């Protein structure tokens, strides 16, 4: 009756870690899907987000894209694409990339947008070129929020890669799907525990990275007078913020 205890016993049994459908292989699959799609999405979203954030043009495009992406039921989208494009690594990764781009783009854009205008204007007045302003002022100051976008995108991809266990042969979602299909509830709990642990571990690492990139001398929120906080947070629209983009540990 105690499914959690049974699930932990299953996970701790070394025999379940080996082989093509073992835990180790499925964690590796999950990490492969996540890393590959977030990597490709970064290549698309970072240059575009920097451009939009720095120039301020295309703001409504980012907000619209983020809202649309939130509204899209990812599970239906995934099944639709797999049905049309076939079941392979490429369609799966393509879907995950499409899902990862909006939060990344929003994070990069929001990172630049939330930077106080005063240091930017000061940098311009000191004679920095636009590239220097971007590279030495806006990116360092905006990096924590940008990593917040990376956290949201990564979580989204890990969660969708789990659901992808419904169609794909790999990844930790298989335990959940197989467990539900065979009415083997222990196996489903095994999947739930493993995927939750993976998500928490990766998010924890990214959260630490987010703390480390915080420039010295800049502390967010807390000690700031209320009026400044209001201005800062209202500049980034709620639609592109998530519990992770704000970088609170």
């Amino acid at each position: 009756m105690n499914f959690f205890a049974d699930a932990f016993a299953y996970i701790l049994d070394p025999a379940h870690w080996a082989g093509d459908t073992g835990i180790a292989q499925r964690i590796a699959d999950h990490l492969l899907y996540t890393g590959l799609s977030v990597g490709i999405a970064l290549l698309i979203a970072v240059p575009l987000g920097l451009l939009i954030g720095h120039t301020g043009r295309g703001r409504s495009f980012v907000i619209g894209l983020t809202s649309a992406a939130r509204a899209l039921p990812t599970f239906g989208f995934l099944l639709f694409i797999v049905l049309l494009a076939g079941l392979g690594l490429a369609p799966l990764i393509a879907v995950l990339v499409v899902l990862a781009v909006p939060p990344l783009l929003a994070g990069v854009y929001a990172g630049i947008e939330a930077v106080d205008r005063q240091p930017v204007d000061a940098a311009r007045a000191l004679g920095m070129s636009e590239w220097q302003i971007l590279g030495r002022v806006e990116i360092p100051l905006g990096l924590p929020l940008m990593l917040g976008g990376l956290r949201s995108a990564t979580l989204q991809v890990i969660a969708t890669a789990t659901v992808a266990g419904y169609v794909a042969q790999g990844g930790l979602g298989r335990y959940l799907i197989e467990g539900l299909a065979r009415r083997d509830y222990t196996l489903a709990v095994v999947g739930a525990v493993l995927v939750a642990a993976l998500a928490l571990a990766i998010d924890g690492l990214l959260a630490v990275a987010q703390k480390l990139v915080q420039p010295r001398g800049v502390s967010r929120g807390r000690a700031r007078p209320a009026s400044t906080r209001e201005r800062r947070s209202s500049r980034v629209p709620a639609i592109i913020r998530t519990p992770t983009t704000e970088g609170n540990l």
Partner: protein
Amino acid sequence: MVWLWNNLGLVLGLAAEHARLSAIPILVGFAASIPLGWVASRFAWLRGLLLTVFGIVFTIPSLALFVVMPLLLGTRILDDLNVIVALSLYAIAMMLRGAIDGFGSVSPDVLQSATAVGFAAASRFWTVQLPLAGPVLLANLRVVSVSTVSLLSVAALIGKGGLGYLFTNGYQRAFPEEIVIGIVFTLLIAAVFDIVLVLLGRLLLPWSRRAGRAA
């Protein structure tokens, strides 16, 4: 399209279930985030604790949370409550930061003035701080609403996903049109919820049409 006409009853039934199973968590998330956001904006140590706890909940992939809910709640697998509680937790996690921001966005000068002209603590909260935080709360609630409606379809895998049923069924029958109809109706529900929230905002916060959009 022919399929839609022939199965209109099914689709509308699922849409109604979808609307019900997502509306409850949205309302619960909003209602819970007000006291939680208020205490979190007053006490720094509670803010850290609440944000950490709900940050962890938010990190857990939805399917995993749906599946372990019966163990935590003692419910049966097909109980509505599993999905409702899991989505409510996500809704609170998403809404909490907005509520803290919202209450924090009210200028301390205004609050002190309210106290000075004789508002008691409770009435100051209900009649001054809450309405002034309204636009920020509304902006966040709209995000919660859209996300919840779209997230629910994953619960089709545990048999409680509203329109998500059309996704799994359409996939099994290799019938893309059914999946598209599921997506379109999900988007329609999200749009209707959003319009309702915007109209409520206009009605309850008539002074903040611009601020509501900017926040």
